[in-house]
Structures are given as C-alpha cells and as structure tokens.
C-alpha cells in the first residue's frame, strides 16, 4: 500500500512505465478510499450505537433518591435488584443528602416536570415538602402495607392526606460510658447526680438546629408537656431540669451536633449524651462498644419516658414520570421480606410491626428499650418555627443562664406574635 501510494505521488517521466504507474496509482486511490470507507463505517457504527443506546426499547428505569451512606449503598442496591428482576426494569438508586432531595423535589414541583420517581425525606422536612409529593391512596394497592405499619409512623406521614410512608425509622437513646458511670441514670434525679459527679462531662446537642429540638422534646414530653406550648407544666419542669444541669454541661454543648458529640464521647470528654443508632455502630467499628460505651433508655421523667421519631419516609413526587411504577417500588420496599433484609443487612429499624429490630448483639439494647416510647414531632405546618423557638429557649436557659420561666414565656410570646404576623402577611 505504501509503495503504491509513493509511486502514485512520484508521477511519470517515461511513457513505458505509464500503464504500470497508472495501475499503481489507481490501486493507491482504492486503498485510500477503502480506508476512508472504513472510517465512515466506524463513525456510522458509533452514531448508531449512541442512538440505539439513547432510544433503548426497554422500559425506562425508575429513579429512587434516598439518603443512604456510601457504605450502605451496595447492600441497598442488592436488595433492590429483586424488584428489577421481578419488573424487568432497572432502578437507579441515587444517594443524596436530605436537604438536597428536598430542594430537588421543590425544583421539580416548580418546573412542572422531573425525573425522580420515588424520594426519601427525613421526618423533619415532611411538612415542608408535603406539597411537592402526591397523595397516596390508603385504600388502594398500598392498603395491606399501610395496615402492617405502626400507626404513629403513618400519622407522621399524613399531612393534608397521606403523603409519605416510613422507609425506615429511628429514634434516640442514651449513650453512656459504662466504665465511668457503671450504670446509666434511670431517673431525672439520677441524671442530676451524675452531672454533679462529672462536671463538664455531660453533653447535650445545643447547636441551633433540629438536633437540639430532638434533645429537648423528650424531656418536655417526659414531664407531661405537649411540645406545642412553651408555657405548660411539662415544659416548665423540663427547663428547670436543664437549668439545674446547665453548670455541669460540657461547654462544647453549645456547638455539639450528632457527629461532634459522638466524637467527644469517643475521646472520653463526655460520659453521656443522647444520640441515634449510627453512633453505636460507629463506636463498635472503633472497638469502643459495647465494652466501654453502651446504650440505655432515656432517664424517666415525672410522667414517664419519651423519644423523638426520626427516620426516612418515602413519597412519590408530584410530577414523577411513572407514578404507578413508583407505587409498586414503594410497596416492594415496605414489604416484610425487604424490610427484614434491610434490618439484617443495614441494621435499620422497620416501621412494620411484623419485623423485629435488627439483631446487633445487645449493641442497640437502649434503642429497643425506647421503642414503645417513640413519638412523632408535633404535626403542624408551623413546626419549623416552633422548633427554632425550642432551640432558642434551651440555649437561653442553658448557655445564657436566663431563668426558665422567663425564657419560656418569651418563646411563647414570640411564637404567638410570629404566627399572627405570618397570618396577616400571607397573601
């Protein structure tokens, strides 16, 4: 080929060589054409393969967006693969943070279209996101699933009709240093004694965020408060307790969040705090649990015990591309077999009454002990405002040393004033 081409390029000088050179030139042109032809063929194949991939005749994949940890994703995908086999279609599992999922749902709702079929949100943001998801029919194909769920959890997902169903639930328990304390405080009086014995080593999540409310409400409820009023007897009793233990709290409590308080406990800076089950799994991975660090029920208040319901709830976006497929996926994910597998593989707590808590060898004993005491946060549209005011009152009492009665009265007044002005301002 190279020879032929070179000959063709050389040109002719003697007439005797001409036919041969012409033949060689012609062969070279054919070779060039053949190579050009191959290139065109390769390009055409590429275009065809892209087009074929883009216009695949198989069913469109379902898109499921949820807040799983990177370490959980592989196990979760494996569980979902059974649905893919049953339906003969793929499920795209997209791991995202709850805040981003909520914003994505809001954006799709505003745009009037989108690509998410099923989305998971945390309990806290259900009310804010309710208008971005469809209403579920409690009497439709999901009825048997709904009947198997804890009624409290279904209530938490009911905001102007049933909108969300619990994918996994969670709640807080007491996490304590067994080596330091021996046994956990069982009552509020015990808690005060422990605080006095270990000054500066009691932790509460006091940063201005929802986690602070999750530490405050269990005490308010355990004293008989509603959690919806700042001036009832339960709120006053709980805040008097906070004022009593405030001098003994770790100063870092003012900025503690779930992860930072868990780290402080691992370093031995604090001897007890409230946290979610992830903390115990973290301590086990660090070799700190269950020997040194254990979980226990929250201290009993004057009216018993309580803890806040948390977890991830699933909803079908308003403009989901395939709502029927999403509903089938939802039913699959909440089925007994799948919930059992998620409990066994990922240690998730199920909202189904027929699925036992994950067997973690006593690691989550405190969480199991609190199961009957789980309560949803106040279900009301102005909950974010209520929550912020609980945080503000708590911080005023604990870090600002404001008398409890005054802080609570100010919170109640601010709540009523804000509600009145919002009502007046709403178009």
């Amino acid at each position, binding site marked *: 080929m190279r020879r032929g081409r070179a000959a063709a390029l050389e040109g002719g000088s003697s007439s005797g060589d001409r036919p041969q050179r012409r033949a060689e030139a012609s062969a070279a042109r054919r070779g060039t054409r053949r190579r050009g032809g191959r290139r065109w063929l390769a390009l055409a194949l590429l275009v065809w393969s892209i087009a074929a991939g883009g216009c695949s005749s198989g069913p469109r994949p379902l898109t499921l967006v949820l807040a799983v940890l990177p370490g959980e994703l592989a196990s979760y995908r494996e569980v979902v693969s059974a649905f893919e086999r049953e339906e003969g279609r793929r499920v795209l599992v997209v791991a995202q943070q709850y*805040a981003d999922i909520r914003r994505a749902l809001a954006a799709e709702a505003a745009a009037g279209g989108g690509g998410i079929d099923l989305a998971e949100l945390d309990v806290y943001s259900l009310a804010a996101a309710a208008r971005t998801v469809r209403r579920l029919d409690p009497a439709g194909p999901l009825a048997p699933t709904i009947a198997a769920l804890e009624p409290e959890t279904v209530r938490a997902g009911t905001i102007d009709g049933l909108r969300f169903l619990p994918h996994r639930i969670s709640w807080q328990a007491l996490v304590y240093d067994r080596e330091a304390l021996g046994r956990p405080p069982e009552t509020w009086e015990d808690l005060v004694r422990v605080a006095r014995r270990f000054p500066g080593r009691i932790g509460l999540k006091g940063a*201005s965020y929802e986690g602070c409310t999750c530490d405050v409400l269990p005490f308010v409820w355990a004293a008989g408060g509603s959690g919806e009023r700042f001036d009832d007897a339960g709120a006053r009793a709980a805040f008097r307790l906070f004022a009593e233990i405030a001098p003994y709290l770790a100063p*870092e409590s*003012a900025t503690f*969040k779930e992860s930072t308080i868990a780290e402080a406990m691992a370093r031995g*800076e604090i001897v007890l705090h409230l946290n979610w089950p992830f903390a115990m799994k973290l301590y086990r991975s660090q070799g700190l649990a269950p020997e040194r660090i254990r979980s226990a029920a929250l201290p009993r208040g004057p009216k018993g015990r309580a803890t806040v319901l948390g977890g991830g709830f699933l909803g079908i976006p308003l403009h989901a591309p395939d709502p029927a497929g999403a509903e089938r996926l939802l039913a699959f994910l909440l089925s007994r077999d799948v919930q059992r597998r998620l409990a066994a593989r990922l240690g998730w707590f199920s909202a189904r009454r027929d699925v036992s808590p994950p067997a973690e060898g006593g690691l989550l004993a405190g969480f199991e002990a609190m199961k009957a005491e789980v309560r949803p946060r106040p279900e009301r549209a102005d909950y*974010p405002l209520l929550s*912020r005011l609980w945080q503000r009152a708590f911080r005023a009492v604990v870090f600002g040393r404001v008398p409890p009665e005054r802080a609570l009265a100010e919170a109640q007044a601010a709540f009523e004033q804000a509600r009145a002005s919002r009502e007046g*301002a709403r*178009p």
Partner: protein
Amino acid sequence: MRRGAGGLLSLPLVAYLAAFLAFPMAFALGLAFTDPVTGAFPSLASFRAIGGDALFWRALALNALVPALSVALEVAAALALALLLSERIPGRLLVRAAVVLPFALPEIVFLTILRSVLAPRGYANGLLAALGLPALGFLAPGSPLAVASVIVVDAWRTTPVVFLIVLGALAAIPEEIDDAARLDGARGWRRFRYVTLPLLRPALVAAVLLRGLDALRLFAAPLVLAGVEGVPVLSTYAYHQWSDYGDDAAAAAAAVVLAFLAVAASLPLLRRGVEQAA
C-alpha cells in the same frame, strides 16, 4: 472579520460567566430581596430577620476581626520566615518545604487534624498536662481563646501564600543594593528598615490585597474548629441558615452582606494597590 471571529471565540467564556457567575449572583440577589412568606419583591424582610438575630451581629463583627488579625499575623510570620530562609542556613530546603506543607494539605484534612490537637482532650492539652499545667479551652464556644485559635490556625494554613510571594520578592532584590548598603554601614535592623522593607513593599501590598480579600470569605476554619455558634462569621452564618434551617432567603441575605463587605473593603485596597504600582 477578525473582530467577528474574536467575538465568536469569546462566546463560550461569556456563556460560562453568564451561567456560573452572573446568573447565580442575580438569583441570590433576587432571593435576598424577596419576602419568603408573601413572595413580595423587592422586600427587606430577610435582612430584617437576620438583623434581629444576635448571632448575625456576632458573625459580622468577627468577619471583620478574624480576617484582619489573621492577615496581620501571616504577613508578620511570612516576612520573618522569608528573611530567615533566604539566608544560607543548613536544611533550608527542608524547612521551606515544612513551611509550605499546611497549604499543600487538603484544607479539611489540615483542619480535622488541628481539631484533634485542640480538643479538650487533644494533644495540646495533653502536652500542657505533661508539663503540669492546667488544660485550656482552645475551642470553648464563644471564648476569646477560641477566636484566637481560629485566627492562628487560619494564619498558619495560609502563611505559605504570603511567604512564597515575599520570598520571591526578596530573591529579586539586586545584590548590588545590599552590597552598597553594607558599604554605607547599614547593617541588621537599619538595613532591613531602610533598604529591604521599602523594596519589599510592592510585594507586601500585593500579598495583603490577595489575602485580605480571600480572608473575608473565611469559612472552613471556624466551622470545622469551633462550629457555627463557636466562632461565627458571615459565610458560616449563611451556611447555617441554609443547611440547618433551610432558609434560603436568609442565607442569601447574609451572603449579600458578605459580598457588600468584600466590595467595600476591596475598593480602598485596590486604590492603594494601583497607587503603589504607579
């Protein structure tokens, strides 16, 4: 024809700037001046809301104090290090590498290490205990010591930037000038004060300009070390409104205040820089 081709070639850049700079800025401004409840525009509702929050005012005050002290500290440290390491001392290259190391590490790695060092039961207090000294609350929320810790850590991490600028400027000073100063009897402090420092001034002004503006958008150091309430600055306050409360409008309002602060601070600095250059 040529101008047309140039315009065409700059289109991707214009599109990029419009999509990733102009649009987000306009969107943030719109968000900040929209009432989140009624949707009315223009409205100062979000500015009124953050104005009623004591944390915002602390963030505003610290957003002026922390960058100013941090930049002052790093300029002093960088100048001292550059003067020391421009001399022919043994192990000079190794020390230079050690000085630049904090900047070479990913910021989150550097800050996480420092948080472990400065925690109540961290290495710093371990050292104090070994020396028989009482523990210090290096990161105690709201304390002056926590503010000082953030300033020192931030200055430590960014000193290499100023150090490299000053070191380059030192290397550019002609040896003849040094020799002439020496012949004239200028030594030590006098040589530094009347010869070296005036020649370094353009480089120092450039370093202060660069770092001064950069320091205003301080974010990771106060957030990782002390938390939002511990040592609040405007960027962490905006992040707190966005991530903890989902209040995009309040976050945008705080970001607008920070942008205004940056523009207001940059104008005199830029003017001074232009004068120096002239």
